């Protein structure tokens, strides 16, 4: 067997050529990883929003909280169902919530739709990962709001202590909350009654969230809700609800990422082919010598494909390295289910980086295959004569 050191050394012989090919493939990896990191960040945000024990109830037929509305009476019926877990105070863990959109201006003057979520006290018990990082929670009756970490300073210039007109009332930002990386980080929260009064939408909720006693009890609770004759609603587990939004919104990035990977991959593949052809051409004597020494054609093929793989791995590693600073970069896109803006951070997860390295290696191996094949097929005499 020919040691791999031979390949690495060979690549070093034509340093400039090898380096430029590596760099050109690395850029492909950079773009691919960047776009995938967008999709991954979005998915993480939605996954973090779904809780295994929580059931979300919407009007039957509605796909999202934005489309749903039902009388507050329905919420009271839901909260009193036997399958609902109870909090420390002995009361059922249930939060009736409203969701509305508000046009806000971004710092650059463009506009966006931000989600206003009216919540009851239990909203926090249902989402224990939400922590106030600055200021405090809003106090009902004081026309106060709290703002998600992803939205702070982004839209409407919302900061601790600033005021904003939402509907008829003017609200003061009482606190900023850490959303634990969830999609709630793009929202503005306030008391559900106050938002209802301010927007003249009293007596209606968009959704009800209920805590089941355990994740295993979720299905039983859903069954209980949907079989109720009194109310016309649909219940589903929170993770499934958010997964649908995640698929609708992150699918675009996956499609874009794959399109770019395939197209740029082709281009980079040709670059790898050029480099490997040059390697083969420059080393025809070496190849002949190896053959004379008794190495088989198959081994020669393997050697050059391996060399291409080394080239690709190096390019993948460089590309992944270049893409690392993208981690935690903030970005925003449309949640295509609610037509509001969701802000999130890019995530260069191991999966994403691995996919980048894989694309680079595949690119180089495919590009290197034909040069390797021609190297292994050439007759020894021809090889010795050349060069």
């Amino acid at each position, binding site marked *: 067997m020919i040691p791999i050191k031979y390949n690495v050394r060979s690549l070093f012989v034509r340093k400039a050529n090898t380096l430029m*090919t590596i760099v*050109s493939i690395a850029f492909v990896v950079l773009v691919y990883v960047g*776009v995938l990191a967008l999709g991954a960040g979005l998915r993480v945000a939605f996954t973090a929003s779904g809780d295994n024990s929580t059931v979300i109830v919407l009007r039957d*037929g509605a796909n999202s909280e934005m489309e749903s509305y039902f009388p507050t009476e329905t919420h009271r019926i839901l909260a009193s169902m036997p399958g609902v877990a109870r909090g420390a105070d002995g009361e059922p863990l249930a939060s009736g919530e409203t969701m509305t959109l508000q046009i806000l201006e971004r710092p650059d003057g463009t506009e966006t739709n931000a989600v206003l979520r009216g919540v009851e006290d239990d909203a926090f018990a249902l989402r224990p990962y939400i922590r106030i990082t600055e200021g405090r929670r809003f106090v009902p009756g004081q026309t106060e709001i709290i703002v998600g970490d992803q939205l702070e300073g982004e839209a409407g210039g919302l900061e601790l202590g600033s005021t904003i007109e939402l509907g008829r009332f003017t609200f003061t930002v009482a606190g900023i909350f850490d959303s634990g990386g969830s999609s709630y980080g793009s929202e503005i929260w306030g008391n559900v009654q106050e938002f209802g009064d301010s927007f003249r939408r009293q007596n209606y909720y968009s959704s009800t969230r209920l805590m089941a006693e355990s994740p295993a009890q979720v299905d039983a609770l859903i069954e209980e809700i949907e079989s109720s004759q009194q109310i016309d609603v649909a219940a589903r587990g929170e993770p499934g609800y958010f997964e649908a939004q995640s698929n609708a919104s992150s699918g675009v990035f996956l499609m874009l990422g794959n399109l*770019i990977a395939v197209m740029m991959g082709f281009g980079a593949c040709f670059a790898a082919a050029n*480099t490997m052809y040059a390697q083969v051409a420059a080393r025809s004597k070496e190849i002949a010598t190896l053959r004379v020494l008794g190495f088989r054609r198959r081994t020669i093929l393997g050697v050059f494909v391996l060399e291409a793989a080394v080239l690709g791995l190096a390019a993948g590693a460089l590309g992944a390295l270049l893409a690392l600073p993208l981690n935690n970069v903030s970005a925003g896109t449309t949640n295509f289910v609610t037509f509001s803006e969701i802000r999130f951070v890019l995530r260069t997860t191991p999966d994403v980086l691995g996919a980048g390295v894989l694309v680079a290696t595949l690119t180089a191996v495919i590009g290197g295959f034909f040069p390797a094949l021609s190297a292994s097929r050439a007759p020894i005499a021809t090889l010795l004569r050349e060069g």
Partner: protein
Amino acid sequence: MIKLIRRNLLRNKRRTILTVLSIAIALILLAFLDLLLAAMSGVDSANASRLVVRHAISLTFSMPAAYEQRLAALEHVEGITIMNWFQGRYIDDRPENFFPRFGTDPDTFPDVYPELEFSPGAIDAWRAERTAFIAGGALAEEKGWEPGDVITIEGDIYPVDIELTLRGIFTHPTDEAAERVLYFDWQYVEEALGNPGAINSFYILLDSPDNMNETIAQAEAMFENSPDQVRAETEAAFFLSFIEMMGNIQFLFSAIGLAVIASIFFITVNTMAMAARERTTEVAVLRTLGFTRSRVLAIVLLESLSVGVLGAAMGLAFMVLTAGALSSFLASQGMTFSELRLGERTPTLVMGIGVSLGLAAGLVPALQAMNMKIVDGLRRVA
């Protein structure tokens, strides 16, 4: 000299072809991104005389139907109609079954859309039947709908399922995307809901685009002190607000574009360097034969330039041939703002990059060839 360049390019055909192809592919991608951006920033079907009035808070809030009469009384208003986004589900949730479905008023709709052409008798039939709908030509063709076909749309925003009969087709003179829409009589849903009289938006046609700003101010001022304040804007600005919502997608596309350019730059530089290295001795011979330094420079540069231009031309040709098909594909995937149209910007951009790429990549090898001492070149063994 031209012959010499051609021969040089053909000497390693495989390498030249691979390089030209990689440039072409990269530029196709670039052109595609640029066309998408253009498609998103300028929606063609926006009429400069048309304005949209909606609730000041956001589109999720509606305005009283009575606003229509008050807005119609404004001085420069030629026509006004209502426009409600029904959304709903047609067959299933797959993206190819998603297309805009608007509830409007068949009596006033044609006044506001003078640019649309309706099939004979379409308007009368639409007005005569509460459950009739009209569809754009592109949409009807894609779905295989014939006049008289009945479709069902399940309500999601509104708790009503509607059953509609196709009674007419309309076409737009230039914008195929404007034909991927369905319009039906909002009265149908209104009655099913118990006549709430809630309107998402009013579309207004003015007598002239010159009166746009004045009318916008008047419309907004009219409801300044009402519980439901309104926002008025040009149709183009209204469409743009949906693009703005998508966040920094422009930035994303530009960043990708830059990385693509960087990648092909290295690919081309690499090829030209390889080509030049192989021919060091030859260049020396040319010089011995009396070719001046500047001639040698020109030969290498032109060779590199032709690779760049060839790649750009191929990429452009591909885009010209496939832009229509790509647009239809994207639209059938439920993507809005998908009309790819080759204006002046994209071809200029692609050719510009091809030329600069060719020149930049050839520069270093060309200068090396020019400044090389003849003896060194002859001595050096490639």
